[in-house]
């Protein structure tokens, strides 16, 4: 089951975590892979913590949710406390730079929230995060993620989102030393 790649994306409600998950899964389909996206529902979807999971595989996906995720994205401190803090060494935490992460933890960070607010609009933090994830992991092609993204974002925000996605790719190049 090693070809199975699992993502858990977490943040606060309204950050577009679920949309990011849907775009990631959709991009995987464009690459000819299988993907299943799921999300947490309920009161937590009303401004509290928000969580989406994406499983991507070349073969049939049986169990639809993350078992032990390969990657955990945390956009807020609360999300990090819930899903990042206890992540074992097999898990790569991908987090916003505002979150304090202890030394020695396997983590990749980027100033996602701040960049979205200052250079774009706060609503595209999820898109920057998505670019960061795809850039760091290469789990789907950049071409597919752009296509999937442009299909899912509100009309009139395509250009803004595409630029935000490229910003995420840039951050990935930086942390990966490319």
């Amino acid at each position, binding site marked *: 089951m090693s070809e199975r790649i699992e993502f858990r994306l977490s943040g606060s409600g309204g950050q577009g975590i679920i949309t990011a998950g849907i775009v990631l899964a959709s991009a995987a*389909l464009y690459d000819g892979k299988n993907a299943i996206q*799921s999300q947490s529902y309920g009161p937590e979807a009303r401004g509290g913590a928000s969580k989406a999971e994406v499983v991507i595989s070349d073969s049939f996906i049986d169990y639809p949710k993350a078992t032990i995720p390969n990657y955990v994205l945390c956009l807020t401190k609360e999300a990090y406390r819930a899903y990042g803090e206890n992540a074992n060494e097999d898990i790569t935490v991908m987090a916003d730079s505002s979150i304090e992460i202890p030394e020695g933890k396997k983590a990749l960070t980027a100033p996602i929230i701040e960049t979205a607010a200052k250079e774009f609009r706060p609503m595209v933090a999820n898109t920057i995060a998505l670019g960061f994830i795809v850039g760091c992991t290469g789990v789907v092609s950049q071409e597919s993620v752009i296509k999937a993204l442009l299909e899912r974002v509100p009309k009139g925000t395509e250009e803004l989102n595409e630029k935000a996605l490229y910003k995420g790719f840039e951050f990935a190049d930086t942390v990966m030393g490319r």
Partner: protein
Amino acid sequence: MAEKNKILLQGNEACVLGAIRAGMKFYAGYPITPSSEIAEKAAELLPKHGGKFIQMEDEIAGIACAIGGSLAGLKSMTATSGPGFSLKQENLGYACIAEIPLVVVNIMRMGPSTGLPTSPAQGDLMQAKWGTHGDHPVICYYPSSVREMYEYTIKAFNMAEKFRTPVLVMTDEVIAHMRAGVEIPEEVEIIDRKKPEWGKSYLPFKVTDGEEIAPLAAFGSGFRFHVTGLAHDEMGFPSNNPLRNDEMIRHICAKVDKCNDEIVESAEHFTDDAEVLFVACGSVARTALYVVKQMRSEGVKAGLLIPKTVWPFPEKALKALSSRIHKIIVPEMNMGQLVYEVERIVKGDSTVTLLEKVTGELFKTEEMYNKAMAVIKQ
């Protein structure tokens, strides 16, 4: 791999797309989590596709209105979840005795009562069979993937039209809410209800005794007849005749029971040489498949039977397996429902162990593996 041309769909969305493909032209319902996306998608798509959507004042009105729509000649559907499924039971029975085609979707959430509205469960399996009072036929599909939500919703319409009876599509919140790639099949079989021929005498409630089921004329199509939830004669008028009562009840049950082999569906994985058999449905079957593969990689000869129709239950398939596999494990997201049907069928051929789960979460792989291994090692 490389299965291209797939579109990413949510389970509930796939259900509506399947329904529209099957020819659904009428939806009446009441919103309830975790099925509301079905109503929302139907509201969006039906007016585009020559159909009609109406949100009624409550769950009971939802199914009653859908039955009315069907009797007017349109393929009709309603969808709900636990509390609403309970409320719909009386009129589900009405559609059975009045022999009106209808598809009812029930997305299972944890109960009883309001329970956990956004969490998966499998607590309605027995309600699907015994929920409405009196003897009646039950056809209930249980999709375990987004693709199956599409396929089995189509089949549900086909069976409803063919057998003139309500058909259930039930699944759990996990399958309803997850998104996966679905390749929309180019060709699907669509069955439309038979209509009576002009100039011939028409008995809308004719006892067919294994022959083709009586056609159903739409109200307004020129045939005038009476439809009632009372025991009735072949014309549809109320009857108190004991012989007719017996004939009518046997007819509505037998028209489906006699075709069980045609209706029943199940899937088997790794059962050829299995020494331990899992029987599981829906999202639990997906966890079980993961666990079975894991066990196989460790040399444990595990297999899996997935009932795709919970009712009628794949009795023959299970009986064949239990004649040679003597350890059966039934994981369920309830305190034990399917397990009773499994026990009834295997009747001592095998030991049957229930793994229950009522936390409101999907069965996790490690948890099922550990519990099942403990049973296997006994």
